[in-house]
């Protein structure tokens, strides 16, 4: 459903992404793993239309081209992003944030049921629906951001390091919620540094290093891959058994 070819991105002189190829099938959960500065957030920001990529980049989603579209068109097409730093409306209430999630036209029908589903998924939000969002805890704000994204009835949900800054218990809770979302048929594109939990939920994974894809494989294989262990667990000298780059 999502097909990314030749994605390159420069910030002025700095090359942040270089000829990245990525694909994601309907209903699939894909995780992109990479160290700090690898270009993970840059990639999601391009895929959500928040940054314009270099010329030559092609992104297609369910058959339509995405490059050159305005950022507000992406939720309308069924692509929702939970960005790094969450991007919620801090001065609005929890309920208002969720209601804005259903701002796009196609999400108006069935809004009430979806709200019920979000409240079921995150009961904390139901208890605090009239609280001002910025006064919620970090974990709760992450729930608002994910809940708001779900309200737009996305076909593809992209999450940028949702586990960042959460206590281990909350991370497990969060990934349980993501697992449930996955089971509703939504495709997930997940950027994470938390390798273990994210490979447990993912079907496939990409390794991103210095703006380039250095490996792609099934989640099962990545769990065993010494390159993943080296990159994220600091084990020395391991060499990747994966085919590199051109995928």
């Amino acid at each position, binding site marked *: 459903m999502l097909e990314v070819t030749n994605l390159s991105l420069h910030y002025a002189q700095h090359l942040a992404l270089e000829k990245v190829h990525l694909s994601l099938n309907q209903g699939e959960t894909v995780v992109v793993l990479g160290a700090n500065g690898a270009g993970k957030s840059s990639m999601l920001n391009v895929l*959500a*239309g*928040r940054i314009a990529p270099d010329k030559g980049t092609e992104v297609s989603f369910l058959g339509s081209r995405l490059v050159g579209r*305005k*950022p*507000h*068109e*992406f*939720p*309308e097409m069924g692509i*929702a*992003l939970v*960005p790094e730093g969450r*991007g*919620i*409306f*801090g*001065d*609005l209430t929890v309920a*208002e944030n969720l*209601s*804005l*999630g*259903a*701002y*796009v036209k196609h999400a108006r029908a069935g809004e009430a049921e979806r709200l019920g589903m979000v409240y079921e998924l995150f009961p904390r939000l139901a208890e605090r629906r009239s609280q001002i969002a910025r006064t919620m805890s970090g974990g709760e704000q992450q729930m608002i951001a994910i809940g*708001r*994204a779900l309200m*737009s009835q996305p076909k593809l949900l992209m999450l940028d390091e949702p586990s960042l800054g959460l206590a281990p218990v909350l991370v497990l809770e969060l990934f349980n919620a993501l697992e449930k979302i996955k089971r509703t048929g939504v495709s997930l594109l997940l950027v994470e540094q938390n390798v273990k939990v994210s490979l447990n939920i993912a079907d496939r994974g990409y390794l991103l290093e210095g703006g380039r894809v250095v490996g792609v494989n099934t989640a099962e294989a990545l769990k065993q891959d010494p390159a993943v262990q080296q990159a994220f667990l600091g084990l020395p000298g391991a060499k990747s058994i994966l085919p590199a780059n051109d995928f």
Partner: protein
Amino acid sequence: MLLSALLTGLVLGGTYALIAMGLTLQYGVARIMNLAYGDFMIAAAFGAFVLFTSLGINPLLGMIAVIPAGFALSYAIYGVMLQPLARRAKHSGRLEVDSILATFGLLFVIQGVALVIFGANFVSYSYLAIPINILGTTLAANRVLALVLALALGAGLYYALTHTRWGTAIRAVAVSPQAAPLVGIDVDRVSRFAFALGGALAASGGVVVSMYLTFSATAGVVFTMKALVVVIMGGVGNLLGALAAGLILGIVETLVATYIDTGLTLAATYLIFLAILVFRPSGLFGRRPS
């Protein structure tokens, strides 16, 4: 005398609150610091004046023409003059400076046209100048009507902004223009709409003012400053704050004029303004900047 001063102050304050709501929409949502705001009001006041004196249309009916005209004109001005600035601006600070320069020019255009047509004299018209008895003192019916109109329009706007999805979307852009596209809000479009809505409020403020005050082609700048003071007193983007601050300012000004000296009203305004800027920079009801 105290009651009469309070009532007069309430009327003035209601008008201040109304026009401050419009300015806070333009500034808080569209990020445009509109220096021509008061002149826009005065243009609408002249509109009501002409409709009343030459066509015999009372200002209540006149509003039905003047408010949409204010909306349409602001919508057009934003599209032609301000949208290019907004698109080009990389950050809101840049847009503020650019918009101040652009609307400063607009101020003189509107004022110039008004001077050519109406001259520099103060004008007024007499509509509903019937005394009404309230708790033992009297107040002209046009002032009572002005207060009722200001409060009704303000309350209607407040309700729409807090209880409808498009109102919430407008506030979302005020809160975080970066995050708004994430839910599919077109920030360009909402900014333009908010600016036009602010223009409609300026126009309604102008009609309200014309019902009970004398005004002239050059009176706009005073209203711009008053609206700005009220917006900052109430906290930028805070509609209820603007309402309360407007009422307070109107009452304080009237009390100073009644009990001390008319010449000191502006001084009192700026004393309050200074105190707020120094001690409560985010407004009477605003939270501390984080």
